[in-house]
């Protein structure tokens, strides 16, 4: 088994992620229950969207203490590939695997719609199929996607090219007008300094087939597979 999709109580995009890896990308994938502690055999781990633990207290704040999280931290520490999508991103933030935090959307609404994001950094294992500045049409669905980090943290993200995706217009203009949730600097996705952990609010698993209106998210998974292939991690 190569890809793993973590299932927390309250995850609801786990099956979509599983389906995309298995049936669209035709790669081996297995569910990882949040109490599992053995991650051997996995090369890529996806923390899916949803409402883990009912989003109680703060989004992701309780899931991050699930038994599996300690092992995901070890996996990430060793360079394993981790993608957190939506609630998965929120969990990675709470767990300290990515810097920053999510606030409630500035408009106080749950937003569920297609948006455009710009590929700020295509020199990553998650975005090598995209061109620099390529605009992707991809859906968001969240109430807490208002990314926040202090000024030093933002500076560091910029200096290390850790900002992977920013909200933009259809033509790639990044401005507050095209910021759906108030996220600082229009940030839609970031990675860690080492470049092996990605968190993003938009849902690539919901935009991996043209039948769903956009296939722009497909290439995130495809990029990871290409990278893993090149690293000869696949058996």
């Amino acid at each position: 088994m190569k890809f793993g999709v973590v299932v927390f109580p309250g995850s609801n995009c786990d099956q979509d992620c599983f389906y995309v890896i298995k049936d669209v990308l035709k790669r081996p994938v297995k569910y990882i229950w949040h109490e599992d502690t053995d991650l051997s055999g996995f090369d890529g781990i996806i923390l899916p969207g949803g409402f883990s633990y009912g989003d109680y207290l703060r989004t992701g704040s309780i899931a991050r203490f699930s038994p599996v999280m300690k092992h995901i931290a070890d996996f990430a520490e060793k360079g394993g590939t981790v993608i957190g999508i939506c609630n998965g991103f929120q969990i990675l933030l709470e767990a300290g695997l990515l810097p920053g935090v999510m606030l409630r959307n500035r408009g106080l609404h749950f937003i569920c719609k297609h948006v455009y994001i710009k590929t700020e950094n295509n020199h990553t294992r998650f975005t090598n199929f995209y061109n620099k500045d390529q605009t992707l049409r991809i859906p968001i669905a969240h109430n807490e996607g208002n990314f926040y980090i202090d000024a030093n943290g933002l500076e560091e993200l910029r200096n290390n090219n850790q900002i992977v995706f920013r909200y933009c217009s259809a033509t790639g203009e990044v401005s507050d007008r095209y910021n759906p949730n108030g996220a600082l600097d229009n940030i839609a996705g970031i990675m860690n300094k080492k470049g092996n952990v990605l968190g993003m609010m938009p849902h690539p698993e919901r935009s991996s087939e043209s039948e769903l209106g956009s296939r722009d998210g497909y290439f995130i998974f495809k990029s990871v597979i290409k990278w893993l292939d090149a690293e000869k991690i696949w058996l």
Partner: protein
Amino acid sequence: MLKAEIYITLKKTVSDPQGLTVKHALESLGYKDLADVRMGKMVVIKLNYEDKNRAEKKINEMCKKLLANPIIEDYHFKIEKEGA
């Protein structure tokens, strides 16, 4: 038994759209002289012991570990004897 009341609030530097919305609502009800409205959370925890020093230490730990996110939130608490 001890009772701890923990107040968790957004840091002053963090915008609070919920507070702002409530402020607008209050203003539309005629309360025009409001400087600011901030929303927060209160957590009540009852402890099965009487040692206040121990309680303070433990509540602090709980806030740091789980209850508050230090990037955006401040917390304070009071601990008192819970009546029999």
